[in-house]
């Protein structure tokens, strides 16, 4: 028999969610609002944060070429990481989905388990691998290639970010692949389609939502990464997150830091909303609600 309508009060769901709602209002909504206000306040190098309204911080963020350069660098690094994750993560997810029972779970775990290890540990591990005396350079040496400087260059940052972000790409693509009916692929093959055509015209269109979803997460997380650029990028390779860190904890120019942080948040949200609009529009109509 189907579920009965609840006879409990209208207020029950609100009462149930009240603790969580209260906490989040206090610890998420309020601080974000305060930060927005902060970004409009004045900063004096000697006296600290002053009351009063000013757009100076935003003017600096949006006008100064120094900040342009940083946003641009963050953007292309995040985009590159996303691209590599798509090119590596999607095929890997596909290969995993084709594996037999014990291996599939094992390797899925190998890919996903690093998510449970702190990013500090992972960044440190890469610094050991990519340093001038690191394992990778030893391997290069064995092949006759000289020492390649990777640490404290964008290369190290990109490699470590790909390592951290790959699971976030594999998960949505894997989920999309799980929903595929394997019989559909067999049907296409029985109609004389080549393996490549099946991939291109049957599999790819159905996993595209997963790719987009994963790409979004990867881009957003890469653009706001702090620890990896901090440990592997060195003092000169500034990204948005490390600049915010500097402003808040070293320069103590909190309004400026707040302005940059909010700019980052807004960019994240805009990209996310655009994605939702695209998804709602294109794919939902063609494939039915997923």
């Amino acid at each position, binding site marked *: 028999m189907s579920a009965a309508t609840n006879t409990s009060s209208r207020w029950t769901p609100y009462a149930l969610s009240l603790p969580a709602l209260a906490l989040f209002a206090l610890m998420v909504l309020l601080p974000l609002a305060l930060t927005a206000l902060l970004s409009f306040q004045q900063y004096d190098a000697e006296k600290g944060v002053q009351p009063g309204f000013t757009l100076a911080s935003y003017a600096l963020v949006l006008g100064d070429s120094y900040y342009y350069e940083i946003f641009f660098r963050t953007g292309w690094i995040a985009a590159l990481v996303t691209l590599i994750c798509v090119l590596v993560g999607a095929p890997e997810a596909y290969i995993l989905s084709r594996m037999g029972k014990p291996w599939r779970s094992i390797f899925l775990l190998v*890919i996903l388990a690093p998510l449970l290890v702190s990013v500090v540990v992972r960044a440190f591990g890469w610094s050991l691998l990519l340093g001038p005396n690191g394992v990778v350079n030893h391997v290069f040496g064995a092949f006759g290639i000289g020492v390649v400087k990777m640490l404290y260059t964008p290369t190290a940052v990109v490699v470590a970010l790909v390592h951290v972000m790959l699971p976030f790409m594999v998960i949505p693509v894997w989920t999309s692949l799980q929903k595929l009916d394997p019989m559909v692929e067999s049907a296409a093959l029985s109609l004389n389609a080549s393996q490549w055509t099946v991939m291109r015209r049957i599999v790819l269109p159905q996993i595209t939502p997963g790719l987009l979803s994963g790409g979004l997460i990867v881009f957003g997380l890469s653009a706001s990464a702090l620890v990896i650029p901090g440990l592997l990028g060195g003092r000169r390779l500034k990204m948005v997150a490390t600049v915010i860190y500097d402003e808040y904890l070293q320069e103590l120019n909190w309004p400026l830091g707040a302005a940059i942080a909010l700019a980052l948040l807004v960019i994240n949200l805009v990209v996310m909303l655009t994605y939702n609009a695209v998804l709602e529009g294109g794919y939902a109509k063609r494939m039915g609600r997923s």
Partner: protein
Amino acid sequence: MRRTGPIAMAFHACVTVFMLAPLVIVCLVAFTPENTLSIPWGTYSLRWFRAVFEHSDLMHSFWNSLGVATVAATLSVAMAVPAGIAIARYEFPGRQALNGLLLSPLIVPHLVLGVAMLRLFALVGARGSTTWLALAHVVIVTPYALRLVVAALAGLDRSAEQAALSLGASHLTAFRRITLPLMLPGITGGWMLAFINSFDEVTMSIFITSPQTVTLPVRMYMIATESIDPMMAAVSALMVAVTAAAMIVLDRLYGLDKVLVGQH
């Protein structure tokens, strides 16, 4: 299952090596007897692990992390269960918004949350307080707890609850004796996932910890930016070990792939 071609296998092997390499190297270097970062060939030593246990700052931050993570996981599950029931079982205005708000720490960069809370802490004088730090962690890990709780509820056979009601149970009794026990794997899985994520969290914590409340990952970050010696590797190896243990428990309880991939 179709046999995978050799190119695909080679590719897959590379990806596997890539994913495991940093963790393996860290565990190896942790056992080096040398004074500098090096891979132990043949001789192994536990000296750096001893150094970890003798390093009072590191140990202090370890206990901080443990305490904060336990409190954060417990509080977040305590809030996620009722909120999850509201979201999974009731239709009410604001349901989507509530769900979005409670999952927002997955979308809002931890960096932004960190500086935002820093501002709040500064205004209310919360900087040295472990309580406020724990509350911040609760917010960060609630999405993980909530998702597992909602998934557990969605997978429940509602007719079992109706059967209990038809046998004379009150709504509270039916919840206590039927719904809750059947949700337990999801709740426990949620707790563990929340614990691990809190223990690992660094980006937000960098901004809101004070010298007394520094957590282990933050301490490690501070050490790593200054001097690097094998002690860092030893701490890292210990963290990997703790994570591996937690993963085994999660897998027994719930199925690790289900937890990480989520029920879609």
